[in-house]
C-alpha cells in the first residue's frame, strides 16, 4: 500500500520496482484458513475417534465404545478449533 512514491529514489537498486510490482508488494498473505474451513476439524474429530472406537469394538468384542469415541472426538475437535481460530 505505502510503497515509494513515483518521484522517490530506491537506494542501491539498479531498477526501481515497476508500478505493478509496487502494487503487489506488502501483502503478507493469510495463514489461517477462513472460519468456515473449521468444518473440516469439526468433522475430523468424531469421524476419526468414532472410527477408531468402532474398530476397537470389533477387535475387543465390546459394543459401547463408539459413543464415548464420538464424544471424545467432538471435544478434541472443539479444542482444536479453539486453538486454531480462537487463541490469539
Amino acid at each position, binding site marked *: 500500500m505505502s510503497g515509494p512514491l513515483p518521484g522517490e529514489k530506491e537506494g542501491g537498486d539498479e531498477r526501481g520496482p515497476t508500478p505493478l510490482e509496487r502494487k*503487489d508488494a506488502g*501483502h503478507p*498473505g493469510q*495463514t489461517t484458513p*477462513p472460519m468456515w474451513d473449521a468444518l473440516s476439524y469439526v468433522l475430523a474429530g468424531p469421524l476419526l475417534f468414532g472410527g477408531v472406537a468402532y474398530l476397537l469394538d470389533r477387535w475387543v468384542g465390546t459394543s459401547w465404545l463408539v459413543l464415548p469415541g464420538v464424544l471424545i472426538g467432538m471435544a*478434541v475437535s472443539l479444542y*482444536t478449533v479453539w486453538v486454531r481460530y480462537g487463541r490469539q
Partner: protein
Amino acid sequence: MSLSLVGLALASEGESEGFHAPSPEEFYWPIFGSGDWTFTRPMLMMALSVLILGVLLVTLTKKAAIVPGKGQWMVEQAYDFVRNGIARDIIGSKDFLKYTPLLFSLFTLILLNNLFGIIPPIQYPTMSRIGFPIALTLIVYAVYHIAGMRRKGVGHYLSGMIPKGLPKPIYALIIPLEYATYFIIRPLTLALRLFGNMFAGHMLLLLFIMGGEYMLLHGGPGLKVVSVGSFLMALIFTAFEALIQFLQAYIFTLLAATYISDAISEEH
C-alpha cells in the same frame, strides 16, 4: 418383508401413472459406449467448457489494448478478481504469481461448469457428478502437499502441521486429528462441498419444474392453478442457484489458495 413387498407393489403401480419425483438416476446421461467406458453428457460438457473458455480467453485478449474493449475488460475483471482478490491476498506478495494460473483456471472452469446448470439448453451442472470435483480436488491436493514438502522438506512440513505450545498430554489426541484433517478430511470436504451444492441445487430445480409440468399437464383444474406457484419457485431458485454457483466456484478457489498458503508459509 411383507411390508416392503407391499411398498414395491405400490411403487410399481404408481409408476404407470403417478408423479415421478426426481431421483439420482436423472443425473446419468450416457451418450455412447457402455460400462466403465461410457461417454456421458457431463463429459461432453466438460470438454465443451474447456473449448469455450480457451476460445473466449484467447480471442478476447489477443489484441490486448491499453484502453481495453468490452471483452478484454471483462476478462481483466475476472483475472483481477482471482489474482488480487484471492491469490495475492491469501498467498501473499512473495509467492502468489506462481499459483495464479492454477487458481484462475480452477475458478473459470468451475464457474462455467456450474453456470451450465442454469444456461439453457444445457441446464446440467457438470460438478453434480462426483468424479469431476474429485479430479479437481486431487490436483489441488497434490499441488499443496508437494509445494509444502519442496519448500520445507518432508519432516519440517509434517511437523509444521501441529500447533505448538500446548500441554503435552493433549498431543496424543491432537496429532492424529491434525493429520486426519490435513490428509483426509480437507480434500473430502473440498470435493463434497462443491458436489453436494451442485447436486442438491439441480435436484431442487428438477423437482419444481417437473412437479409444475406434471400438475399443469396431468392435474385437475385446482392443480393446474397451483402449478403456477411451482414454476414461480423454479424461477426464484434459478436466480438463487446462480448465486450459489458463483459462490461455490469462489469458495473452491479460495480454499485451494488457503491450503497452498498454509503449506508454504514459514511460521505457524
